[in-house]
């Protein structure tokens, strides 16, 4: 049983190339980076890896504070204006293997993000908006 709606799962699998991941630095300053991602249907998680992953600020941030936010969004139509997307807030588990499967040349380390709060908009009809806590 997924914590995502059917529309959300469809969007997560629709091939939007990039999301943006927010982490929190040691002094409380947020950090945000564009990144590729994979919706893991078996675990119902967002999996994120990358080149030299363990050398990244986001990796160091998550080792200190596992709370992250990840947003995937795009503009379905400019005229009429129709934006859509999904934000996932939750905790990132740091895995030491599996990351290499997420992209060519990717490091073994990866994040597995389990949603705690999901906000989505524009996925079903122009004005749709869903926000709820899960887990």
């Amino acid at each position, binding site marked *: 049983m997924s914590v995502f709606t059917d529309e959300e799962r469809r969007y997560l699998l629709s091939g939007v190339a*990039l999301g*943006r*991941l927010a982490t929190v630095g040691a002094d409380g300053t947020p950090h945000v980076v564009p990144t*590729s991602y994979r919706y893991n249907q078996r675990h119902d998680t967002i999996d994120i890896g990358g080149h030299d992953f363990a*050398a990244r600020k986001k990796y160091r941030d998550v080792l200190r504070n596992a709370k992250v*936010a990840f947003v995937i969004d795009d503009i379905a139509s400019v005229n009429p204006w129709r*934006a859509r997307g999904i*934000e996932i*807030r939750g905790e990132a588990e740091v895995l030491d293997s599996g990351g290499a499967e997420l992209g060519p040349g990717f490091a073994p380390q990866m994040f597995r993000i389990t949603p705690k709060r999901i906000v989505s908009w524009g996925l079903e009809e122009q004005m749709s908006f869903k926000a709820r806590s899960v887990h």
Partner: protein
Amino acid sequence: MALTTVTAFGHDVSPEEQTRMSFSDEEVAYLRSQRLARIATVASDGQPDVVPVGYEFDGTYLYVGGLDPVKTRKFRNVQAGNTKVALVIDDLVSADPWTPRYLRVYGTAELVDRRGRFGPAPYMRITPTISWSWNLAGSPFTHDREVRPRRTVHQAAAEQGASPVHTTAQHPHGGVP
């Protein structure tokens, strides 16, 4: 300083250390060419939030508004005193060849009333403190090409407590929907 090999987005790879007063002409042109930013804020319990936003840049500050912004998590996080924010503006010039680029801005946010397209409205006014730009020229990404992020410590951060250049924020046009 040693050059470093760029990876998919060049994040965090030994940035070219620079202290300049503000954004470069190329960075300003990029800021003005893009439609959306993604802004990250932090709640008091350490939980970050990240959402797409329209933005405006008046040469000094970045402004983020919205239809009913006061109720949003990002506004509430700043209202609660967590004034440090981060924005990233990025796009894929081309997926093939893979050609990403970005401008990331760390800043300090305050909530202000400002005249936008629909009259006075609440806005988040962001004073840039540090920014990084990468590959704004839009060169195709390759593993054997070396590109360094361009890092800027902004005037407001370098001269803490300095008076802002503009004390009243007015702008002739409103935000992106």
